């Protein structure tokens, strides 16, 4: 087992750190306070990310991306996450599901997303179906050569700024263990389609400036040319990439936790009470030791999963363990960071309270902690089932 990063990976880390420090972090305060990223700033970051070669760094060479290994991708995620999502989302990672594009879809959707000419969003969750995604209500019924979509989605990140949505809708049902299950199809739906209304969702505690939207489909006509993958095979296109995406979420959590630890270390060393640095007390220094140990473990678990992706042997549980552990470690790390900072930890003059707020989403999206445990335990118990 080799834990040594390559020279390129080290350089990549340095470049991304410089990018975050120079192009993203200076805006974090204002974006958080105003709960908004101006279109000019978003476009400026996008252009700079394109120039730095970081835009769509998650995509393979055949679709115009750099074709990085997954470890390198995880390392980039880890560094980008040392700044709010609201900003680093503009260093776009198009949905990998777009790799299922075929024929004209490649030129119309996949390539423009990689080149930075189009923005995608991922529309799965509905008010009535979150963790139980297959229970969705949005329906797509066949009408000649088209499908007619009816229903609604919510919590859809950045849909208001996207050119199109990857929409999941029910196109039929089938029997599974004596129960009727939805057969789901993925569609590429342009944001300006007739019959689609996109509305800003409620304000969110985490990642101010990064908004979710609600999508309403009212007899929205979509050509069958816009089916992503095959009709009825929506989960086939989604599942592999949802699993892989969880490893990147884990890397993101590790980066956020490292940022909280770095801040905590310097505060512990510099803040004096009772005539000495607070870090001289075991009550504080042991917190630092625990944070650092847990973050190291989360990092290794994440890189292990990334390595398995590179080897083509990632299991659902590998990704689930990394996402579960890293997001929970992050939760503990930011909470301890607030404690170490004392009252200042809750004040909006410094980024600690922001890190604390931003961390909370990570245990919820891309599959909650409970769902990850469900996935992990299902895989563990599989050999015992007959």
């Amino acid at each position, binding site marked *: 087992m080799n834990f040594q990063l390559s020279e*390129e990976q080290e350089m990549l880390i340095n*470049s991304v750190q410089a990018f975050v420090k120079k192009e993203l972090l200076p805006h974090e305060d204002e974006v958080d306070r105003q709960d908004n990223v101006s279109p000019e700033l978003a476009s400026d970051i996008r252009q700079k990310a394109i120039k*730095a070669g970081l835009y769509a760094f998650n995509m393979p060479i055949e679709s115009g991306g*750099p074709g*990085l290994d997954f470890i390198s991708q995880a390392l980039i995620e880890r560094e980008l996450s040392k700044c709010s999502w609201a900003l680093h989302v503009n260093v776009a990672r198009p949905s990998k599901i777009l790799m299922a594009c075929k024929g004209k879809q490649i030129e119309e959707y996949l390539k423009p997303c990689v080149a930075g000419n189009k923005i995608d969003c991922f529309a799965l969750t509905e008010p009535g179906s979150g963790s139980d995604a297959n229970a969705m209500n949005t329906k797509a019924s066949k009408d000649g050569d088209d499908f007619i979509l009816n229903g609604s989605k919510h919590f859809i990140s950045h849909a208001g700024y996207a050119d199109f949505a990857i929409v999941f809708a029910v196109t039929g049902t089938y029997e599974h263990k004596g129960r009727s299950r939805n057969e789901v199809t993925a569609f590429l739906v342009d944001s300006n389609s007739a019959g689609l209304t996109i509305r800003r969702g409620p304000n969110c505690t985490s990642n101010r400036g990064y908004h979710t939207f609600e999508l309403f489909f009212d007899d929205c006509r979509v050509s069958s040319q816009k089916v992503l993958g095959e009709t009825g095979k929506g989960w086939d296109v989604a599942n592999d990439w949802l699993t892989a995406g969880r490893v990147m979420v884990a890397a993101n959590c590790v980066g956020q936790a490292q940022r909280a630890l770095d801040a905590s270390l310097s505060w512990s060393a510099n803040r004096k009470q009772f005539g000495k640095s607070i870090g001289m007390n075991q009550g504080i220094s042991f917190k630092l030791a625990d944070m650092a140990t847990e973050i190291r473990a989360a990092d290794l678990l994440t890189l292990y999963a990334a390595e398995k992706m590179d080897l083509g042997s990632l299991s659902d549980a590998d990704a689930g363990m990394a996402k579960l552990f890293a997001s929970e470690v992050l939760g503990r790390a930011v909470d301890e960071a607030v404690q170490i900072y004392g009252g200042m930890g809750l004040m909006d003059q410094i980024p600690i309270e922001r890190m604390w707020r931003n961390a909370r989403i990570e245990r919820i999206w891309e599959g909650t902690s409970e769902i990850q445990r469900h996935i992990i335990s299902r895989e563990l118990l599989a050999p015992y089932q007959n």
Partner: protein
Amino acid sequence: MKILVPVKRVIDPYVNIRVKSDQTGVETDNVKMSMNPFCEIAIEEAIRLKEAGKAEEIIAISIGNQQCQETIRTALAMGADRGIHVLTDEILEPLALAKVLAKIYEEEKPGLVIMGKQAIDGDNNQTGQMFAALTDLAQGTFASKIDIEGDMAVVTREVDGGLQTIKINMPAVITTDLRLNEPRYASLPNIMKAKKKSIEQKSPADYGVDIAPRLKVLKVMEPPKRQAGIKVESVSELVDKLKNEAGVI
């Protein structure tokens, strides 16, 4: 035109420097190392000259231990074309560096040598000047602006009390000041390309240079800790303390 750019590996400028407990130097184990910021500026300037069509090839040179290869690789990822690594574990003084660089200069015959005005470790600010003396080249030190006009370089220098602009014959050596430019970070495609660029490995003996240190370091110590200040009640108390305690007036 070829441009030679020496790059030095130093402790990262954002790292807290700690003195070794035996007082023989500063701690470098497990400490993040980076390219000297003034050398980064030198590489950036060379790349800009190349992008402006004023230079064809940029050669990054580093003299020092095996890890200096990483520093050269960083220069290659920023945009330098090839590297020369002079491998040695010796402690390096400015004169030794200048002598090795002078030999490389003779071999490569560049139109310009651009280097940092100093490295942030020793803060010597000598290598460029010594190199100019050894090679008999014109020198433009502390540059905050460089223009190439035919076979002359117009260099704006940061001097005490303002800016001085000089016009010097090329080949020349120019040392960089902080305000010359803002170095780029290596782009992802360039990082990938850097792997394929060549780094030639040499030793000081290849150049017939004796690099043994001429100075002996007796002791390295931390600067004395500053005492906390006090508040004085009145101007007369201040004057009294300045006169009788500080002895400055």
